C-alpha cells in the first residue's frame, strides 16, 4: 500500500526540491504542485519522486506520530520477504 510519509523540504532547486524524512534524503520534482514551496515546508510524495501535496507542520507532525507507531509495530524484519520463482 502506498503510505504517505511527509517529507520536509531542505532546499528548493528550481523545479526540484531536496527533501528529508526519517533520515533519508530525496530529490523530488515540484512540477505537479500548484503551491509555492520553501525550505521547512512539508510535502507528500508519490513514488518517492513527485511532490503531490503541501501539508501544514501540524499535519506532518500528526502523520509522523502515526508512522512512528506503525514502524514500532512493524520493524523492518516484518516486510514482505523476497520470493524467487521459476516455472
Amino acid at each position, binding site marked *: 500500500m502506498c503510505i*504517505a510519509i511527509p517529507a520536509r523540504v531542505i532546499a528548493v532547486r528550481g523545479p526540484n526540491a531536496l527533501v528529508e524524512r526519517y533520515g533519508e534524503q530525496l530529490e523530488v520534482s515540484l512540477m505537479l504542485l*500548484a503551491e509555492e514551496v520553501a525550505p521547512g515546508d512539508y510535502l507528500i510524495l508519490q513514488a518517492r519522486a513527485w511532490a503531490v501535496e503541501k501539508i501544514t507542520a501540524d499535519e506532518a507532525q500528526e502523520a509522523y506520530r502515526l508512522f512512528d507507531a506503525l514502524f514500532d509495530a*512493524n520493524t523492518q524484519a*516484518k516486510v514482505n520477504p523476497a*520470493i524467487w520463482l*521459476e516455472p
Partner: protein
Amino acid sequence: MRGWTGVGEGRLHIQIGIEQGVIVKVALNSTRPVGMSDALTGCEPAAIINRLPRLFSLCGVAQAVAGLTAVETALGFTPPPPQTAARRFLVVAEALEQTAWQLLLEGPRCIGLTPAFERLKRLRSLIAKLCPQLFPDPIWNRIGGARLQPDQAGLATTLAEMGECLHPAIWGEPALGQPWQERRDFAHWLDQAATPIATLLRQVQDCGLADFGRCATTPLPTFDPEQLAQRLAGDDGQMFCARPDWEGVVYETGALARQWDEPLIAALRADHGNGLLTRWAARALESRALLAELREGLHTIVAQPGAAVDVTATGAGLGVVECARGRLAHWVALAAGQVSRYRILAPTEWNLHPDGPLFQGLIQARTGQDATIRHAATLLVTALDPCVGFDLTIDEGS
C-alpha cells in the same frame, strides 16, 4: 519523527534472469511494510476515518471510503444513496487522476517522452475543486455522512473543463474519430494520433511488443461479501492480505480487468491476449469510462444533511471499493466503540502476487527484435501500476 532511518513506503525490486533471450527467472522482492492495519487496533472508529487519508498518499479517498463503508456496516448504519453516490464520485475522480498520471506522465517516461506536466497539473487542480463543490464543510469523510450540498452548475462546469483538458491529451483531435469501440477505428487512430499514449501504443506495436506480458491471468470475479469477510476476519498472520487468492486462484484487478469485456479490448485480447498493447489501450479506455461515470453520477447526487450515528456499537463490517489500481477491501471488527481488528486487502497484492499477472507475464517472455527486455518489462510493470516505485535488475548470465 523518531530514528527509523531510511524507512519509507518501500520499493518493489524486480530481478529477471535471461537465457537465450527468454526470461527464465523472476524475483519479486517488496520492502513495502505490511501490517499497516495493526496500527489501527484500539482506535475509535472516527479517529480511523480521519487518519486513513493521511496514511495513504495515492488512493486516500478510496481508502477513506472503504473504511467508512466498513465502519458504517459494522455499526449497522446504511448511508442514504446520495451520500454513497457522492463518495463514489470522489473515488472515481481520484481514479481518473491516477489514470491520467499513467497516461500523461509514467507512460511517456517509459518511452523517453517528456511528460505532459502542465496538462496533468491542470487536471489535478480541477479535480481538487470537486470535493468542496459537493461537501461545503472541510470534512467530507464523516461516519453517517457529511453535509452534502452539491453545486450542480459548478460541478458540471468542472467536469466539462476536465473533459476539455483530458480528451485532447489522450485521444487527440476530434477529426481522428472515435477509436474506443471498433478495432478498425482504433487502428486508424493509432496510425494518425500524436498523443503520448498513441505514441506509446504505436511503439509497442512496431517493436513487436504487443503480446509481451501475455498470460492466462483473468479478472478478479465479484466477491461474495460474506466469504471475503470470513477470509479477512480469519487472516491472523495477514498472509491472505499479503498474497491473496480467491478459491485457490490468483487474479488481476485494475483498469484491464474493468475494461475486459469492452468491444475494443475484447478484440485486442483476441489477437494479443492481455499483452502490452491491450493493457495500455485499456488504460486509455479507462480514462474515458471514468469521465463518463462522473458525468452520469452527477445526476444522482442531491442535497442531504448526513446523520448522527451511535459509534459505540459492537459488530463487524466490510467495505469494498473499485479504485485506480483495482479492488480495495477494508474489514473492521468493533467492540464497544473501539477497533478490535482491522484488515486491508489492497489491489497491488493481487497484481504483484508471486503467481499473479506480473510474474506470469514475465516468466518465459521474450521481446520482439527491436526491443530490449528492460524496456518491455518496464512497460509491463508500469502498466500494472504498482503503488510504490520499482527497480529492475536483469541478469543475462543465468
